């Protein structure tokens, strides 16, 4: 408790003031906004350019999908958590894999030694995938597979083969493969995008998977441009949009260069964005994103199908505003962030747990995220009409300002040769680092306030919080599993299929390599073996 002499009576009498009136992205807000500030022409929800939402009836037609990420430890442990969450109100799967899996390393690889199962579940074989989805009808749920290219090809192959094994038509599958080679791990930082696989072949393989899915799985989202992870590096909302869309345009051009039609694949491109704590700016951001994307698809690429112009946004509320200090405050923050995601018109939401500053969520904190969404949906009434904030002078003005600034930055990136060029040249990396330093500077100076950090901080804070703990023997179990698995399969078939994949890459550089990857998984090659084959075919070695 505060000592009595520290109570600042003066401050209370004078009235408290904010340190400034700038948004997180540096937009200076006016004292108030009027009719003159807002856009005159504001088409209805469900009408191009979809600023007010992609559907006319929005959440009256259907609520967003409650799609919390889950995944840890052994596939069987994750399976239990998934089934538990489904029983508690989760309406879509969002499966996270551990970093070794996401880097194409088997659990017995020396680099996986201390990593297996930590930040996601460990999956190396088709058998693992079967265990992960035990008791889950693949044709009755929509599933997001959180894995980056090129390893997304291997995980996708497992998912397709699992459906086949269970006699489910792959054309009936609904879901999303994150499938981005640059943003999916931890955002577009240079080292994370280049250390384990050469970036251009990774993008090529991502496009191979996309092409296959477009032709064979009509309701599958072929890529999820991960603007959330871009944002979580510390950049602002303007940079988040500009980086994500510039990257998306690189993918769109790659697919067009394969001879695919824009209206054939654009409806299957999805976005995964973040909601930071700046309530008005983040709502305006989602609205601005929809408007920019719709115009890009129609005006730049000549899309004729309205669905090509739909920006479908999945959200995970940002972790950056959450604090390890006074962790219960995070429940309040995440609730406000979730409300912004809903008022911004998103299609699926993961409400980040209040224990984020310590570990993966416990069962209790995971369910609390689901309940947060249900309370907003069913109790607050905000879903009774589409885009309830539409027409607000401040929101419409912010939407336009964010749109203008993001377009200006996209133009700069375009002039520098596009996102991929900017990534390779290190320009993106330097922009990210500058943004991080600025974010930290503002926290230090008090321009940016975080309760519990630089305001109302309690030194020697004591609190009770349940923290998730991994099972102690999971890493050893995974190593034993993968060794036994490799001993008990037909080694000749594995070698043959890997050789075939190697030759396919070497001799057919413009062909689609995904079918050969599917064959390799089917012949019981592991994720590490397939990844190594792809690396060898590109004369690439992982240094450690």
């Amino acid at each position: 408790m505060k000592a009595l002499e520290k109570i600042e009576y003066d401050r209370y009498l004078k009235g408290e003031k904010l340190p400034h009136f700038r948004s997180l992205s540096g937009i200076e807000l006016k004292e108030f906004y009027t009719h003159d500030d807002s856009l005159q022409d504001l088409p209805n929800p469900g009408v191009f350019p979809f600023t007010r939402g992609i559907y006319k009836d929005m959440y009256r037609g259907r609520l967003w999908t409650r799609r919390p990420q889950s995944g840890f430890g052994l596939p069987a442990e994750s399976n239990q958590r998934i089934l538990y969450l489904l029983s508690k109100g989760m309406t879509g799967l969002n499966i996270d894999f551990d970093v070794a899996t996401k880097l194409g390393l088997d659990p017995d690889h020396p680099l996986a030694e201390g990593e297996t199962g930590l930040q996601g579940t460990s999956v190396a074989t088709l058998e693992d995938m079967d265990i992960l989805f035990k008791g889950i009808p693949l044709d009755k749920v929509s599933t997001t597979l959180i894995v980056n290219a090129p390893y997304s090809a291997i995980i996708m192959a497992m998912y397709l083969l699992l459906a086949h094994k269970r006699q489910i038509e792959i054309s009936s599958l609904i879901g999303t493969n994150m499938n981005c080679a640059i943003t999916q791990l931890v955002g577009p930082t240079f080292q994370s995008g280049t250390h384990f696989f050469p970036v251009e072949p990774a993008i090529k393989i991502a496009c191979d998977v996309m092409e296959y899915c477009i032709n064979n799985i009509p309701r599958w989202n072929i890529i999820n441009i991960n603007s959330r992870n871009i944002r979580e590096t510390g950049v602002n909302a303007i940079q988040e949009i500009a980086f994500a869309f510039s990257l998306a345009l690189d993918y769109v051009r790659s697919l067009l260069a394969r001879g695919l039609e824009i209206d054939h694949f654009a409806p299957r491109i999805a976005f995964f964005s973040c909601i930071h704590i700046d309530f008005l700016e983040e709502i305006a951001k989602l609205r601005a994103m929809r408007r920019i994307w719709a115009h890009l698809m129609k005006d730049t690429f000549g899309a004729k199908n309205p669905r090509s112009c739909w920006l479908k946004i999945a959200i995970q509320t940002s972790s950056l505003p959450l604090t390890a200090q006074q962790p219960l405050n995070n429940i309040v923050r995440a609730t406000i962030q979730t409300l912004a995601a809903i008022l911004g018109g998103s299609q699926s939401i993961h409400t980040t747990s209040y224990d984020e500053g310590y570990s993966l969520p416990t069962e209790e904190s995971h369910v609390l995220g689901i309940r947060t969404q249900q309370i907003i949906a069913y109790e607050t009434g905000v879903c009774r009409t589409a885009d309830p904030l539409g027409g607000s002078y401040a929101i419409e003005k912010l939407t336009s300002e964010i749109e203008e600034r993001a377009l200006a930055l996209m133009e700069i990136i375009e002039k520098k040769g596009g996102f991929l060029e900017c990534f390779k040249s290190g320009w993106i990396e330097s922009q990210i680092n500058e943004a991080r330093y600025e974010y930290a500077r503002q926290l230090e100076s008090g321009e940016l306030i975080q309760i519990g950090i630089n305001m109302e901080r309690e030194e020697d804070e004591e609190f009770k919080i349940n923290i998730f703990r991994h099972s102690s023997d999971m890493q050893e179990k995974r190593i034993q599993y993968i060794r036994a698995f490799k001993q008990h399969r037909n080694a000749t078939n594995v070698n043959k299929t890997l050789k075939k994949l190697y030759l396919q890459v070497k001799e057919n550089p413009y062909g689609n390599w995904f079918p050969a990857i599917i064959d390799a998984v089917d012949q019981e090659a592991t994720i590490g073996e397939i990844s190594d084959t792809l690396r060898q075919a590109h004369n690439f070695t992982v240094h450690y």
Partner: protein
Amino acid sequence: MKNRKRILIGKIGLDGHDNGIRIISKWLADSGFEVIYLGLYNTTEGIVRATIEENPDLIGCSFLGGGHLHYCKKLLDLLRQHDLEDKKLIVGGVIPPDDVTELKSMGVSAIFTTGTMRDPIIQKIKELVEA
């Protein structure tokens, strides 16, 4: 500047979250330290190799993914094996309270969990390198 204290900064293992090491490296450089930035994806053996080559005054490692106990134990053991136990190790990142205690008893000199402000970090590091 003469006699600048040298600090080796890096992440061990496969976790790629580098916000922390980027910001701390900037703060250290601004405070007059020489930062040897090892970035992501180091092994414990690699950190020891760099310690031998660079002879830093302090080693700083950051963790977010939950690998801190495993890697710190391994690193401290390796440093001892190479007679480098005088090289102090500091750790930053997402570390649950019980693990802070365990890391300290293992021999980690200071632990800065998320939300620690710049000044207390720099002050503690100055104390450690002057000691």
